[in-house]
């Protein structure tokens, strides 16, 4: 059986199914639903009617997932509230809590990555945003953490970034960085399993994490 997702429309025969792979691939590379479907149409892999129904279904699924995520998030305490000090004078000031500082840096880094993806065709802008992201990850190393696995994940990110300095970033690599950064934000006290997943995500997108074994001076990263 092929490991390809299919979308079957209600008014087409059993044989007339739409290859969903191109759509999924496009989505993985960060494109919008519209872009993914457009790519299917351009390749002649789906008719306009099929695409319309597919778009509706995907749109409905995306909205359901978003609603579920919102409900789950509503029931969770936010770290910003857990570590908030009762002090009127401190409102609007930067927190001295290491965990919140780390989250702030990661959040800013995430914005740089989103901008890099948005301006992907403009190489200078894209690489400039990645430099800013790299800077933020470097700043994280200055925060004294008590989570060994988190420190390892940051080191993995630094190695990944250092190894890409002379190459330029592919869309796939930026998306991997974005996904790992999101995971880090919610897992500052991370388990071995989460750390392994982060490393796998980076390696799957083409980052070389074996740099320290190839004569790169590791201390240059810090």
């Amino acid at each position: 059986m092929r490991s390809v997702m299919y979308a079957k429309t209600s008014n087409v025969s059993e044989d007339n199914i739409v290859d969903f792979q191109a759509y999924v691939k496009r989505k993985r590379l960060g494109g919008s639903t519209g872009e993914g479907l457009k790519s299917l149409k351009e390749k002649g892999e789906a008719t306009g009617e099929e695409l319309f129904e597919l778009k509706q279904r995907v749109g409905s699924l995306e909205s359901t997932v978003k609603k579920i995520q919102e409900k789950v998030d509503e029931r969770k305490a936010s770290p910003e509230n857990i570590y908030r000090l009762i002090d009127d004078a401190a409102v609007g000031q930067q927190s001295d809590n290491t965990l919140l500082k780390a989250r702030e840096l990661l959040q800013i880094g995430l914005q740089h990555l989103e901008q890099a993806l948005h301006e992907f065709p403009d190489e200078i802008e894209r690489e400039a945003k990645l430099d800013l992201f790299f800077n933020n990850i470097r700043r994280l190393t200055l925060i004294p953490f008590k989570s060994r696995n988190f420190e390892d994940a940051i080191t993995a990110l630094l190695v990944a970034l250092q190894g890409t300095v002379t190459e330029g970033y592919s869309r796939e690599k930026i998306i991997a960085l974005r996904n790992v950064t999101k995971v880090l934000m919610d897992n500052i006290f991370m388990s071995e399993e989460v750390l392994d997943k982060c490393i796998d995500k980076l390696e799957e997108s083409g980052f070389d994490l074996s740099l320290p074994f190839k004569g790169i001076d590791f201390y240059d990263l810090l």
Partner: protein
Amino acid sequence: MFKFGDLTLERVIFEVRFHNGYLYWDNCGKILRTLSDKWPDLVMREVSPERAHLQFGEAEIDMSFSHNRMGTHQDYPKELGLYKKFTSDSYQIILDTLQISTLLRVGNRYQYILSHDDTDEVIEFLKTKGFFNISEKIRVLGKKITQPSVRFVIERDDISVGVQAGVMNRSLEISLPKPIKVDMSAFVERGISIDVDFFSTKIVERGTFGVEEFITTQEKNAGKVIEKLFV
């Protein structure tokens, strides 16, 4: 009448609650072994299918855990450094072994006392803070209020604060055979008790929850709550 620094921290308590901690019954020994390797001064007090109860070293930090909770407390801590470290390590080892990823409730409580022999003065002081201004109403019911206490919860985003304060009037009687003597000089019989309890009102993800950071934050907050309400 008093500064925050005059108060004595009688007890600090930390507790997390969770569900699905059924690996307690399979891994209790493993947890005790791992904890003892890290903290050799740990003494086993009582272990049963309901809960495990241990005590740590000269600091006498009390720790217990079961399939749905883990908690620690320390009486009369001089400083909280060791308490935070021990609590953080215990939390990490227990929740890792029980494979808990979500916390239903986290809480951190501070029980302060202040010695003051004149109970009437304490009552007058509490009245000046606006908690017991019902004197006019009780005149028809009786002569005066003698054991005032108040309890309320301040709702905040995700972490609420329970405050309990009142006049403390207690006694301790111990009879021991000669020649054993007990030093009771540090025991406060009369004064004010102030209890500040911080607890989560939503579930907390383990990935963003650091025990030492949480206790440090709430320790500061306890001081701020007391200063705003009582000082």
